[in-house]
């Protein structure tokens, strides 16, 4: 019995120590307005109180904090000159133990931050996707916890992305990432899903059990109400990955497993 207890305790301890090594627990405060306040250190200065905002592509600090943290114009990066803000590179930006070097930060007195500053006490800026997008994030309002673990994703420079949107001519082209081997048509009578018009013999769609006249309802959990939906969903499925595909056949809903192959 002692051995059993020791074993159970060892498992619990092992789980705790593994998570402590790989995750940074960031204390957060849920404000009465529903915003999440976190403490940030910029170039070793701080803490400053910022809003964690998954709706903001950029990380932003106000001019007061920029001055306090010693953000210099010399670290300015390329940016549109007409924009009423400075685009700087920050040497280190940290929430708890989660830190990044050379982070692009916008310095401006944003009107929303100013409002929150008046209503919720000192708020110095916004932590946006340019920071948190680098991490595997777990957010729990109920327990007041934010866990950040180093991820593999590197967010794009949003200023460049916005400028690119304006330079791109023509319409956006949707293309499945892999080859499914089937043809989809819009439903004539309306209703949810698209109709499978044809399944190529020996294709991955055929191997997975899709039949002509099935109504395709979702691919990997994404609704396929329209042809555009269907293509957007297929864009997300990499060749070789097996995903659930929901179809309606003779009034019954079925979930099939399909693995698209490489090809176009």
């Amino acid at each position: 019995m002692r051995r059993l207890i020791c074993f159970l305790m060892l498992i619990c301890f092992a789980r705790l120590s593994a998570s402590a090594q790989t995750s940074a627990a960031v204390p957060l405060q849920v404000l009465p307005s529903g915003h999440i306040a976190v403490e940030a250190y910029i170039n070793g200065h701080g803490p400053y109180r910022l809003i964690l905002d998954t709706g903001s592509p950029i990380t932003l600090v106000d001019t007061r904090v920029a001055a306090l943290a010693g953000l210099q114009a010399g670290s300015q990066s390329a940016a549109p000159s007409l924009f009423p803000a400075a685009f700087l590179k920050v040497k280190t930006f940290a929430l708890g133990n989660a830190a990044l070097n050379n982070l692009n930060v916008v310095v401006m007195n944003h009107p929303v931050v100013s409002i929150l500053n008046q209503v919720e006490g000192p708020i110095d800026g916004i932590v946006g996707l340019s920071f948190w997008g680098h991490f595997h994030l777990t957010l729990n309002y109920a327990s007041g916890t934010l866990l950040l673990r180093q991820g593999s994703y590197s967010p794009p420079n949003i200023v460049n992305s916005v400028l690119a949107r304006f330079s791109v001519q023509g319409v956006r082209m949707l293309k499945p990432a892999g080859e499914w081997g089937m043809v989809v048509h819009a439903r004539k009578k309306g209703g949810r899903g698209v109709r499978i018009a044809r399944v190529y013999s020996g294709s991955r769609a055929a191997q997975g059990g899709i039949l002509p006249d099935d109504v395709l309802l979702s691919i990997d959990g994404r609704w396929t109400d329209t042809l555009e939906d269907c293509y957007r969903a297929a864009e997300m499925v990499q060749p070789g990955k097996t995903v659930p595909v929901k179809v309606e056949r003779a009034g019954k809903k079925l979930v099939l497993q399909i693995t698209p192959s490489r090809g176009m």
Partner: protein
Amino acid sequence: MEMDNDCMKRLRRSPFAACLLLLCMFCKSAQANTPEWSIPFSLSDVGHVLIRARVNGAGPFTFIMDTGAPTLFLSPEAAKKAEVTANAQHMAVVQRVHLENGPTLQNQMARVVSLAQLAGMNNLNLSGEHLDGVMGFTLLSQFQITLDLSHRHMLWKQVQYHPMLQIPGGTGRELMLQKQEDQTQKQMRGMIKMAVSMLGGGKSQPAARRPLYGFLLAGEGKTVVVKRVLSGGPASLCGIEPGDRLIRLVMPGRRFTNVHSLPQALKDLNSAASSAGVVLVFMRGAKRIKTTLTPQTGGM
């Protein structure tokens, strides 16, 4: 069996061990029973996490997942489609919000307003998708959310949390917040209107869909080779075979291009949105073959 009996006897003798074991079992079963969902998301061209939901059965609508927003925001157009009626303060209770591949939430608080930011992004077609609203605190806080942008889904686990709802017209503090927010929206609308007039609005067009060719191309140095052909597919029907080397292609309405690399060939082929024929020139051994491939519209 003897071992099991022995173990049970020991457990009876040691209440501490029995309690610990029960606790472990309870924790495990409670963890297993917590509902969780794999919610698909996409990342917009300008860095917003987008999730979809049906509202009162209508939609799907596209929302920005936004911890910087206090509640669920619906555009007036989406609210109309979903038959959501707001009061004089633009607040409403939405009967059903069905998250894509996720749960259906009942009686969710929402604000029905035209947010200047969303209107601006839609007018300038910045996002790549039409945006119908924002999901904020009152909805998001009912879940533990695990998100990694290198994945295609995020994990939403239900938690016992009942967020306080902010109703404009409540306390003086809330009124102040609301008033200032409305003022900011007004300012932003002016700025965005100016941006739309400068940059040109109304660019939003439905996306095009690349048709199916029915082959797999591979790059071997500077040559591009057909590795596989879909049986009965467009490439197969025009006589293309595995091993053929693609040397030239003519996309509809364009001049020919000599093929020097796989990325270049894929870029050209991926730009076709119709089933108009593509002229391809191949080498099969020493033989030069010219053929017209008619890609399959709706094929994938």
